[in-house]
């Protein structure tokens, strides 16, 4: 503002740029910061996975050879092969160095690069969790919104009650029951769905897609049932929080119809805080899918992890652990990155 500005009733001039940083300039920095943070977290996970699993009692090489007769030289050879003869810190630096180039070593039990084993199983897990994620998020948000808007009604009580109940059910148990009821079939109910696996094998083209979809139903239903409740509850309470908002009174005062007030103002605002949760949930679901994969024999990461732990197949365990944690980190970071694009209030 210049010195000879006439004190006027109202300012006509744009005030000089305040401390708030405009979107264009700050977002890249914010983005860089978040990405750097995520990278640091990933490194930390890398370190953890290395040391955590060294704590598993047992000599991996002896375990690997499964009690077959092996001479000390041969054992030493194996140790050399897997780099286990080096001092821990060397193993660690080697491991980190390789991991940074995407090489997690060779699985002890499968004799295949860990990365290959993971990339083999990852799409299956993603298919399962992705489908479930889309469904439970949609369902949770939809029902949560309805519940909040009709708070206190029978429908709301039923919705929240059901969500809480399903939320309290162990997923594996629900999966088992679903297998009994819908897969094996009880009473007059025929077994409609396959008992496990991802495909019957042998189908091609559209039949293959249908076959996989058919196999997908029960695991997805299980996941959706146990997961949608949280989204519902969070959406509901976020919307209830928003419903006291004065801006809704403003919107109503403007003469907007009730459903417009909800659609245009309340719900979008309430969903913002849920976005983070939704993303984080996806990350966690990827890691939490172990149980469902076990129950439904789904050929995904969960099953692989379980097999790897019992050996312990150190490289595979480490790789999988890294992937699980990375899923969470990546999703968290995505949430961080998306949030400011959606919510203009957040630091840009």
């Amino acid at each position, binding site marked *: 503002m210049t010195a000879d500005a*006439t*004190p006027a009733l109202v300012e006509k001039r744009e*005030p000089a740029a*305040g*401390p708030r940083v405009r979107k264009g300039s*700050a977002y890249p920095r914010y983005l860089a910061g978040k990405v750097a943070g995520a990278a640091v977290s990933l490194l930390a996970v890398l370190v953890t996975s290395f040391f955590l699993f060294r704590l598993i009692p047992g000599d991996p090489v002896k375990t690997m050879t499964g009690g077959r007769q092996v001479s000390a030289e041969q054992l030493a050879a194996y140790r050399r092969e897997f780099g286990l003869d080096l001092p821990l810190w060397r193993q660690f630096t080697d491991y980190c160095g390789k991991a940074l180039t995407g090489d997690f070593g060779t699985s002890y039990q499968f004799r295949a690069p860990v990365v290959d084993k993971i990339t083999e199983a990852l799409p299956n897990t993603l298919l399962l969790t992705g489908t479930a994620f889309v469904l439970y998020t949609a369902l949770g948000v939809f029902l949560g919104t309805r519940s909040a808007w009709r708070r206190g009604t029978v429908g709301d009580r039923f919705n929240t009650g059901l969500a809480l109940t399903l939320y309290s059910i162990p997923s594996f148990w629900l999966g088992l029951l679903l297998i009994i009821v819908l897969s094996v079939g009880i009473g007059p109910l025929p077994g409609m769905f396959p008992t496990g696996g991802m495909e019957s094998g042998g189908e091609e083209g559209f039949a293959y897609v249908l076959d996989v979809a058919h196999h997908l139903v029960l695991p997805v239903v299980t996941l959706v049932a146990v997961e949608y409740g949280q989204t519902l509850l969070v959406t509901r309470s976020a919307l209830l929080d928003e419903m006291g908002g004065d801006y809704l009174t403003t919107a109503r005062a403007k003469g907007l119809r009730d459903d417009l007030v909800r659609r245009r103002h309340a719900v979008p605002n309430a969903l913002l805080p849920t976005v983070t949760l939704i993303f984080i949930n996806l990350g966690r679901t990827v890691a939490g899918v172990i149980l469902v994969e076990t129950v439904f024999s789904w050929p995904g990461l969960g099953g692989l992890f379980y097999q790897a732990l019992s050996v312990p197949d150190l490289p595979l365990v480490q790789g999988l652990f890294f992937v699980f944690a990375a899923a969470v980190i990546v999703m968290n970071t995505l949430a961080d990155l998306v949030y400011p694009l959606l919510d203009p209030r957040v630091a840009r």
Partner: protein
Amino acid sequence: MTMSPTASDVTTAPLLSAQGLYVTFPGRHGGPRARAVDGVDLDIRPGEIVALVGESGCGKTTLARSLLGLVEPTAGRVTFDGRPLEYSGRSLKAYRKRVQLVLQDPSGSLNPRHTVYDAVAEGLRIHGYGGDERAAVAEALSRAGLRPPERFFLRYPHELSGGQRQRVVIAGALVLEPELLVADEPVASLDASVRGEILALLLRLRTELGLSALVVTHDLGLAWNIADRVAVMYLGRIVETGAVEQVLTAPRHPYTQALLSVLPEAPGAPVVLTGEPPDPSRVPSGCRFHARCQILAGGEAARAGVADACRGQDLEVLSGSGESQVACHWAVSAAPPRGAGLC
């Protein structure tokens, strides 16, 4: 009745004194540091009530907090009873037995989970009061006008009205028998009808206990109501100070004039300054008010030949003592103080 009952005379040694006080905060997003308090000298003598007025964000609260040692000044020092304030835990604790703070928001100042009794006794417990805690609490409450005190002991803050809450806060301060009360906007959140009671209480305490007080406010009427002396703050610095009658009836600084002119009661055309409160992280050079100064913009300063000084020449920090002073090139050079009456 124009003089306060205990109007302090200018020669007594100050009880609390700030000398060249600077407080800066780190700027946001790596921006320049915010100079919240930017060179303040201020004395408070025993038994005196000083009002610190100014618009929002000018640094009043920060100054008050630094006087209590709640923020460490970047430069300058605070002296209490002749001794500079030390920032070690122990000496701060001892200091805070003698100087008390009352905050703007009485509801916020009371822990919702503590009863009135606990809230008042808290200070005693912190300082390991040896005497009869119950009696002390009861006395402080009744002194603050909550009578009979026992009726309030077990109440929770939410069971009290705003005025009662503020009385509890004041009682909590009084129970330690402080020598100085720093009240940061003590009535800003209270209803108009209730606030008079609290102000009356402050005045009564001054008469009964000889308490000195620094009352921070943005309400000039409040200063007129209870203060002996007023200091007008602008952008981290005191720009005009003096006896209440003088400053509020015959303001010399253009800023004070503008503040007074926008009061609903004020005669004459209001001088509405443009824009928002200025930003302490970008204090203009020269007179810090020059960018918004109606005198400068209206050309009066140029006529007085100080326009360039206003834009480029820094002003001295006003001394903390009681006499009437103004930090304005124009007021100092050109205009003799206007009549003492209400213009």
